[in-house]
């Protein structure tokens, strides 16, 4: 598999919502390529017919009974927000206009 380019790293940073500095982008390029070159060994294995596993062991994940339970207290949760008003978290404008 081809290595990442500087443009790839910029695009990934955009997807990851990180405002990386030019210095960080420059430093990350070889580091990410080193790591990807190492994990490229996975391509050598024959995985035809092998099921992917989301966990190492089988989980039953049974559904819990659908009953009303106490949850977190609204005031306590809102108190954590950098900015809150009434029952709402305040954020910068999302929709233009």
């Amino acid at each position: 598999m081809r290595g990442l380019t500087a443009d790839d790293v910029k695009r990934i940073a955009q997807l990851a919502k990180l405002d990386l500095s030019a210095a960080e982008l420059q430093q990350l390029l070889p580091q990410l390529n080193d790591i990807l070159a190492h994990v490229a060994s996975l391509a050598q294995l024959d995985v035809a017919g092998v099921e992917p596993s989301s966990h190492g062991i089988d989980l039953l994940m049974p559904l819990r009974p659908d009953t009303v339970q106490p949850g977190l207290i609204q005031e306590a949760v809102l108190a954590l927000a950098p900015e809150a008003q009434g029952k709402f978290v305040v954020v910068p404008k999302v929709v233009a206009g």
Partner: protein
Amino acid sequence: MTARALHQLTAGQAAAMLKGWELSAEELTSALLARIAAVEPVVGAYLRTTAELALSQARKVDESRRAGADLPVLAGIPCALKDNLSTSGVPTTCCSRILAGYVPPYDATAWSRLKSAGAVLCGKTNMDEFAMGSSCENSAFKRTRNPWDTRLVPGGSSGGSAAAVAAGEALYALGSDTGGSVRQPAAFCGVVGLKPTYGLVSRYGLVAFGSSLDQIGPLTRDVTDCAHVMDAIAGHDSLDATSLPGQAGGYASGLAGGVKGLRIGVPREYFAEGVQPGVEAAVKRAIGVLVEQGAVAEECSLPHTGYALDVYYVIAPAEASANLARFDGVRYGLRLAAGDHEGMYRATRQTGFGPEVKRRIMIGTYVLSAGYYDAYYLRAQKVRTLVAREFAEAFARFDVLACPTTPTTAFPVGDKAGDPLAMYLSDVCTVPVNLAGVPALSVPCGLAGGLPVGLQLIGPALSERTLLRAAYTYEQASGGPLSLPEEVKAP
């Protein structure tokens, strides 16, 4: 007993003294707080100590005991928690600037269970930011030193928890283990560390890193204490959808019984190039001790071992990039002002996350992105199946696998800090276990070059009782738990 010696007790020894009224929980806690004051400037195990809380919890235990209550073993025993375990009313930051000042409104289940068992919290311990690292050097806030030699790292990511126990600053601690983060620092600091079966200890309230791999586990002075802590924290929790059903417990009561006939597999891939001769010798001696006690050891092979690290460094960053998407400046933690919401996310995350966390978010984002998902993430999930299958096949022949916890003893501060890949390679012996979801325990097995070595015992799912019994048998037959360093010298 003098205040100087109280911090050297195991939790089990201290519990017996508390029960027999030789000591009050308040006296014990005061002694621990004095020890913390004495050695913490050099060790730096804690991000934050909670002395007042500890003393009030200790007094409460003393009152209950005076009132005639029959208290759990851990009642009144001072402990420490890794800073990624949510503690209601006590800041929990994962050693990240993005969570600076965050005070959770709820307790992690593991902590609420310890609390109801009468635990005394001395503080929250230092760690690699969001548990990403093997040396504690990725903490945004401070450095932790190895109590055995303060020029060395304590390991990571639960390095603060391991150093606190090794330096006598807590009688036990909890950490979390995604790829070795309990066992590796336990080995480096000469304490016992257990990564339980995936799902045995509730992850509710543990700040998520790699959700399919994360498990909370104890760090203790000896194997008996490890069993006591597991008795308190293991078991089903409806608040964690991946929590295993069924009854847990019986860990401390099952320690005796020996290892006669226990089938031990010794996987040769774990003794490959890169393992220090002193580490290999100590581990082989320890296996010899178990054989003298009646176990049967035989070499075996796990040929996919070499691929496990690569699987891990796809799956763990992928899950981390998804889990850490929640840190966006909206609901809690750091927020940097910007003209629009997108700018707020970017500025907040750029300022709040440290270099290793950003690196892993970048890798994870890439391997999950359109066009690369199948080649990296899906393939890694398939190879995980092969790794897990290989363990299952080994456990058809063996009750436990024995190998080193780490290829080397503790390394110097700064040694690998500039080379992410070299740091990742230090997890080579521990990572496969998390991928397979099985339990593994690290027990000190002597010294190499004056530094502790960890014997790693790996078992099939829910074999914690067997692992603890084998480790206990080794500990007893080898002259008891490793003596921890009394003097902690500045580097």
